[in-house]
């Protein structure tokens, strides 16, 4: 029953979405439909349709929906602009350039540009991921390893060869994002060579042929790569019926380890635990926090930065001192005669005569003394 309702709702949702863009937002067609439709979202959660000019707790301006189909604030991209930016590479080969590269060349490029982060033969290290842990077909079988009951067992190996569903991802990412500090610097042939090398260290084959040290990869061969874990993912996202499948997957909390009160889960308030549960404490754990953890409210250690006394004078002192006791003025003679320590002390603590402590600045004593030196002599030491 529930399933049937849901199917209808999803159909209505798609219809409403299409209606929005063919009829525009102004039409009242489908309003009731969309109110119902938007209650369930593709992710298994709820969404908040606009009802009485509100979505959830937020007001919306109804003029926007009315006039949105008339707003076009930009311009159409040129053919060259599209070509320059539309460089993604899809599993079916869309965007994959012509070119070729050998395992041998790949290894040379790898040793020059990649090994310092990805390690010898892609073994990882340096904080960067491994590219291979060995034979892709064997390691794909480790994906059912789960250290759930035996913490010391081997975990699953999720490297390129054993885990990734598509080879196009590797080509695309190397082309766009590698080498990490100098991305988008490799030619198509260099990328082919690196991909060939990565296939080689994962001990993979293409169309029944081992990618050995002599192998030369090109576009045609690339499109024949079958990843060992191609069918290792759920829900299905390929083909024209992908979205209904994704919606159905997340409509069932059991698929993704969730508990839903509308699907039989219980909100237990008393005596909720099995006798088998224990308190598991941190054993070692992850530390090395930067900066070290602290909630202390003290004054931070301050590094003394020298100030330019003239700059300080201009900003903090000039408005009063320009007219009396200006920098280097003869008027200073009487004060300086009392000794500079006295002048410093008065300047730092302030005086009843109207001098604010440190002129109202928050400079250190040492820094402020250089300002006093400037005002009393007119010179910067």
């Amino acid at each position: 029953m529930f399933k049937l309702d849901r199917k209808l709702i999803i159909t209505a949702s798609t219809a409403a979405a299409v209606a929005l863009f063919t009829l525009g937002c102004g039409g009242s067609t489908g309003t009731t439909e969309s109110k119902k439709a938007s209650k369930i979202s593709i992710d298994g959660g709820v969404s908040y349709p606009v009802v009485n000019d509100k979505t959830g707790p937020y007001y919306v301006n109804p003029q926007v929906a009315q006039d949105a189909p008339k707003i076009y604030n930009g311009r159409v991209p040129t053919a060259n602009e599209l070509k320059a930016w539309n460089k993604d590479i899809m599993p079916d080969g869309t965007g994959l350039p012509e070119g070729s590269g050998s395992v041998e060349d790949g290894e040379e490029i790898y040793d020059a540009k990649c090994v310092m982060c990805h390690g010898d033969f892609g073994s990882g290290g340096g904080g960067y991921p491994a590219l291979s842990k060995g034979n892709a077909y064997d390691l794909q079988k480790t994906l059912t390893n789960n250290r759930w009951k035996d913490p010391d067992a081997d975990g699953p190996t999720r490297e390129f060869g054993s885990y990734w569903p598509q080879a196009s991802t590797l080509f695309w990412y190397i082309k766009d994002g590698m080498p990490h500090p100098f991305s988008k610097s490799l030619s198509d042939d260099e990328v082919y060579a690196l991909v060939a090398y990565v296939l080689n260290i994962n001990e993979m084959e293409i169309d029944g042929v081992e990618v050995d040290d002599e192998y030369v990869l090109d576009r045609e061969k690339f499109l024949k790569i079958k990843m060992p874990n191609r069918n290792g993912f759920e829900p299905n996202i390929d083909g024209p019926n992908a979205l209904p499948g994704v919606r159905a997957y997340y409509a069932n909390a059991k698929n993704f380890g969730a508990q839903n009160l509308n699907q039989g889960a219980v909100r237990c308030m008393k005596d909720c635990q099995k006798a088998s549960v224990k308190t598991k404490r941190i054993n070692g754990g992850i530390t090395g926090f930067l900066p070290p953890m602290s909630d202390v409210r003290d004054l931070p250690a301050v590094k003394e930065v020298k100030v330019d006394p003239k700059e300080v004078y201009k900003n903090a002192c000039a408005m009063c001192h320009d007219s009396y006791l200006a920098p280097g003025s003869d008027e200073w003679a009487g004060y300086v005669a009392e000794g500079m320590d006295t002048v410093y002390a008065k300047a730092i603590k302030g005086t009843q005569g109207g001098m604010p402590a440190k002129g109202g600045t928050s400079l250190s004593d040492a820094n402020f003394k250089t300002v006093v030196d400037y005002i009393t002599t007119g010179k910067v030491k």
Partner: protein
Amino acid sequence: MNNKESQKVLDRRDFFKKTAALSVTAIAGTSLVSSNARADDPAIMNNVPWGQKWGDPVTANRYGVPSKYEHNVLRRNTKLLASGNFRASIAVAPIQESMGIITPNGLFFSRSHGGVAHVDPHEYRLMIHGLVEKPIVLTLEQLKRYPSVTRTHFIECPANGGQEWRGPQFNSIQFAKGFMSCAEWTGVYLKTILADLGLKPEAQWMLAEGSDNSEMGRTIPIDKVLDDAMIVWGQNGEALRPEQGYPVRILLPGWEGNLCVKWLKRLEFSTEPWYCKEETSKYTDLKPTGKAIQHFYANEVNSTVTSPSPEIDWTHLKDGDIVEIEGLAWSGMGTIKGVDLSFDGGKNYVEAKLKGLVLPKSWTRWSYIHTYKKGDVLQLTSRAMDDAGYIQPTIDQEVSVMGVEAVYHRNAVETWEVNAKGEVNHVQIRS
């Protein structure tokens, strides 16, 4: 002292006892320790330095900064998550210090895959193309001319808590749950821009691609694009910070932070998904069946106690003190409906109280007033529910389906143990 007495208006003797105790805690290390419980408080009796001289002129700090005393309230890293010399890495938010439901921009957690890009707003362009009748290129000024909306939403890295599938690892709330933050975002609904571009009916997926060093991209289903997906340029009333994708990022309310592509440059519509690096090699949840969940969009209903925490514990409390247990609850699948709190690690629960604004796909504050009994050992476990019907699973419930190798989307209940001294430790209650 019994409860009734403790709730009376404090007499003078009590006041000074408390003041003395607090002063000692607050400025331990100074010579203020006084054996005389009736001593007058120097903080009241003496003139304070900032009360007798000029403060800063209003011309200081043209862009304000926190008090220098707050210098320990910081985003933090661990050496373990330092990939790419901290360029493919994360800095986590100090949620133990967080107030309300808004994270200040300077403390918002930061995750990048090729470092934080600094985009020149004059050179910024957004291209939307593929299965649309009229493709478009927008400058920043043109984009911001679309009618805007402002929404409060959390963004959470789905690996929040992902290091702890096999057992507790972080004795810290900042690291155990701080891979998230919440802000008020300003931008335009994607559906508003698309209303004119004429989305073709066969379009099922949208690629969102960043302009940063890693050209980070993700595939987004059309359902979200036409629902509440936003292109945002404002964060808590100012421009996005570079760490959040200045000048423009995608915001998919409630969904994986990784899907909310930063430094956004391109949106393309297609019939087939793209299989980007971050939706295949990573951000997929391997189950014990050997199958991995791909396109796992929403961050599920979740909650944690944030006070007390290992960072700010209860060692300073006295027997009988009344204290507020506080926490956060959030769901990427809807609005928080309620939070239950357990004092015995999830065996028995009471209802906690929600506080303040309760908004969809937003942090929600909850609290519970507790009378502290010195020496008690408590295991504080919170459990949230949302309006889609989801309730946080126990660790055993979640692990029974997901195993312990999934990395992402761990939302089982968290437990914080208060020991007899009032110290707080992160534990897990599980079979």
